[in-house]
């Protein structure tokens, strides 16, 4: 059994509860022991780095130092892509001496990097591994066509995320293939869905969402898999609005990667939280 520190982040306690519960369900099936960071704080999200660079780096650094010094662990699972990006950002920023000194002053103890930060895809692909994942599958998919959507923050910028191929990543595709799905080859894998603007500029966001989903549909996808709570809720919830002006719109289910993996591993539908989606995903999962 491997043990990982776990940072759920704010969304996983509200709008993305099903990411929390489905991730948890898959980890139990895959013999990974998750230890939540005690008293964790918000990572600062986009509001942090567009207001105060130092705080934006110090908040995740504070969590990473807790993982290393208090929990004595070397890796943390961060299923939210936005949080993951901030955590990797902190690991990157402490490479600069002056910044590391400022961060230490804010945090109250030094952090020089070194804690491995794993996003949702990394946990399955790197930590568990494809062979081990495959061996635990009890209900393999029968070739469900899935468009793997990475969005922005899993891979960009590569100097921070350390993603191998930021323009055309393939690790999520390998994970869905391991559970019996057929990943589709499509153009919008790393396109931005505009989730940050979903409350402020809905007209802009609807155009971006339409483009991404239409591309997935044209490439034969029956569902989109994602690894970010902001992407999921944005792609899922804007479809109802798009339908109001586009009568010919065909709904596209938007699932978390952990929901697909959980389904194949035999995690219960209730724990997967399939009923929380706006566009019903159960038809394509039947």
């Amino acid at each position, binding site marked *: 059994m491997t043990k990982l520190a776990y940072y759920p982040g704010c969304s996983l306690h509200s709008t993305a509860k099903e990411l929390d519960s489905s991730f948890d369900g898959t980890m139990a099936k895959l013999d990974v022991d998750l230890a939540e960071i005690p008293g964790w704080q918000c990572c600062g*999200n986009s*509001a942090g780095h567009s207001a105060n660079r130092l705080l934006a780096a110090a908040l995740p650094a504070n969590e990473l130092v807790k993982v290393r010094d208090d929990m004595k662990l070397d890796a943390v699972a961060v299923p939210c892509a936005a949080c993951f990006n901030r955590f990797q950002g902190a690991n990157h920023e402490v490479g600069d001496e002056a910044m590391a000194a*400022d961060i230490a002053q*804010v945090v109250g103890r030094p952090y020089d990097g070194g804690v491995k930060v794993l996003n949702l895809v990394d946990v399955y692909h790197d930590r568990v591994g494809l062979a081990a994942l495959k061996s635990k599958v009890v209900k393999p998919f029968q070739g469900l066509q899935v468009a793997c959507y990475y969005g*922005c923050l899993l891979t960009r910028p590569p100097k921070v995320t350390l993603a191998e191929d930021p323009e055309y990543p393939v690790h999520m595709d390998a994970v869905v293939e391991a559970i019996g799905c057929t990943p589709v080859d499509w153009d919008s894998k790393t396109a931005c869905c505009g989730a940050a603007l979903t409350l402020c*500029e809905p007209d802009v966001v609807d155009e971006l969402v339409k483009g991404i989903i239409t591309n997935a549909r044209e490439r034969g996808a029956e569902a989109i898999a994602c690894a970010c709570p902001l992407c999921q809720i944005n792609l899922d919830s804007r479809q109802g609005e798009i339908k109001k002006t586009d009568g010919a719109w065909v709904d596209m289910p938007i699932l978390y990667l952990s929901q697909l993996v959980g389904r194949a591993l035999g995690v219960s539908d209730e724990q997967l939280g399939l009923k929380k989606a706006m566009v019903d995903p159960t038809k394509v999962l039947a």
Partner: protein
Amino acid sequence: MRSERRDRVEEDVTQTPSGALAARIRSGSGENPYLCYLCKKCSTGCPVAPFGDVHPAQVMRAVQLGDEAMSVDSRFIWLCTGCETCTTRCPQGIDVASIMDELRMIARHDGRVRKDAPFARSLDINYRSFRRWGRLYELELVVLDLLKRPKAALGYTGLGIKMMARGKIRLLPTMGDRGQMKRMARAAERIEAGRRAEAKVAAAGKAPGAGGPSAGARPKAGGTP
């Protein structure tokens, strides 16, 4: 619309170029805007460029010329989603998204955030929310944001009800270590405010075309070419 924009660009060329803005950006973000040679890769990859008053390469040029109206006051800086495509693709290794962040900070610092940029307010509410609770209180974020824009709020009622029914909205905040958050935020705000005030004064004395290392500049982490 389009010809109006061109008129503005032509006007701007006649202004005296100044390095003050670029120096401030360099000091705050560690990025040197003069490395940009206007290939426009940032603009072609930008998901929101088609919806903006200007596009990222134009903002970069404006910064080089010290044109605050076309950069600090643009609506574009409040449309940037922070998707990092520009940063990823820039052949000069400029962190363009970080420059957009810096322009937002300058706009706030100088009290010139434009009124037709709802994202500016949304980011402020967001910052105050996680600072207060230790974690982001999503319901508070949405309610405070939409209260100020009742017309827009109407468009979200149906969606809000659906989300409520699916248990996707948590009514009460979950809290982090609030004392620790307050202490960290105060310390970071004090350090940053001091640095920003200094940078503004230092930049004001900059000669035109100042591209050299500025007094308060911090070298970039990681080292880019």
